[in-house]
């Protein structure tokens, strides 16, 4: 049976959600929580989204989408434009490269994978920004940011998984 027009619109809208959700995570990351010191260590929610979708549904998160999300993140956070795009693309690339390895493995393995990828990404970001600024940047806050991001991964991954089961079944 040929899918009807509305069926296709519906599928298109559903397929857009991984990108939209990750986009929203960037905006959520900009909300002021007024908790002392939190803004500096706030978890990189978008990075979790990019890694998750790269591992589980890479067809719904093309590189261009990752690039856009990165640029939005740079604009909102006041970082040099391009740095987050670069970092997020590298996270996606790393996740895609290890995708066949993650296939069929337990969630813990995917999580450990994220720990390594996030660590690499943050160290790279620190290096690049230190070069851009021309001095060694204090990185203590980045360490906490890394810890929080990694700790929050299962929570967001669980929500994404539920979303995937509810709306993104392959038909």
């Amino acid at each position, binding site marked *: 049976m040929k899918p009807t027009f509305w069926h296709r619109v519906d599928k298109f809208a559903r397929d857009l959600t991984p990108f939209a959700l990750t986009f929203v995570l960037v905006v959520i990351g*900009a909300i002021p*929580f007024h908790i002392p010191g939190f803004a*500096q260590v*706030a978890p*990189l929610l978008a990075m979790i989204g990019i890694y998750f979708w790269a591992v589980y549904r890479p067809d719904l998160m093309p590189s261009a989408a990752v690039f856009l999300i990165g640029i939005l993140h740079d*604009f909102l956070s*006041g970082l040099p*434009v391009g*740095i987050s795009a670069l970092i997020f*693309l590298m996270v996606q690339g790393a996740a895609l490269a290890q995708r066949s390895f993650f296939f069929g493995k337990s969630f813990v393995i995917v999580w450990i994978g994220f720990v390594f990828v996030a660590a690499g990404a943050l160290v790279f970001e620190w290096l690049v920004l230190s070069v851009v600024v021309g001095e060694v940047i204090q990185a203590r806050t980045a360490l906490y940011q890394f810890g929080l991001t990694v700790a929050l991964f299962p929570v967001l991954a669980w929500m994404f998984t539920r979303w995937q089961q509810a709306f993104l079944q392959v038909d």
Partner: protein
Amino acid sequence: MNDRERSISRIAAPVRTFAQRFAYIGLIVTAAALMLVGKMEPAAFERARAHVTDAVAPILDAVSRPLDAVHDMVGEGKTLLALREENARLRAGRDRLLQWQAIARKLETENKALRELLAFVPAPGTKHISARVIGDSGGAFARTMILNAGSRDGVRKGQAVITGAGLVGRVQEVGLRSSRLLLLADLNSRVPVVIESSRVRGVVAGTNGETLRLVHLPPDVVAAPGDRIVTSGHGGALPPGLPVGIVSVVGEGGIEVEPFVDPARLEIVQVLDYGLDGIIEFKAGRTEKTR
């Protein structure tokens, strides 16, 4: 599937993989190129950034209001618990301030009389624009905030942002209804200051950490812990005498300054319209004219 379709898909699949890989590398190169452009021409993305921030500002504004309310409620509860001690402390403080008031009144009249004698040109009048913090998104490597006031409210690039306690930072970019506040702690923040007691000029620079650094002092100058640092007014963009911080450590690694304002709890700030519109922009230790 017939033979023809099969052969097409046999060619199409590698072509698609190749195209995807090409796009991926292309985007990486683009991102790196954007960074280079931004490094060479810091103002390149200012307008785009302001537009994007403007677009997101209404959402952030709406979301941050209930959060502010919750935060206020928690604060209120804490205050109620500490009411008695607070009261005693305030009484003592009031008595002390009354003495200061008497001194200030005397100095004010004296000052006025002396200014008349000297035909002194007073600093231009300052207007205050109150703004709410609607975005606090810097992350580990940037210290900026988004305010819900922009060019339509009179906010201009380079203006000082203060609270009752002192200087918070400066306006870095302005959109129509939002603006970006560059906090003192940001690596790009440079503010011309003087040591209040000795009137020695210097620059307070952000370190991305808790404390600020006092740099560009004349070589033979000694600063001591406890010295108050205030804005010098050099460059014309900031009014002179805004409290910035207090010297906390003087050592091998330089002079550290503890800022008066802790940006973490900021909800409402004031943008100072000093009338001079940020004539000269201080950035990275060098002066440059803004448009």
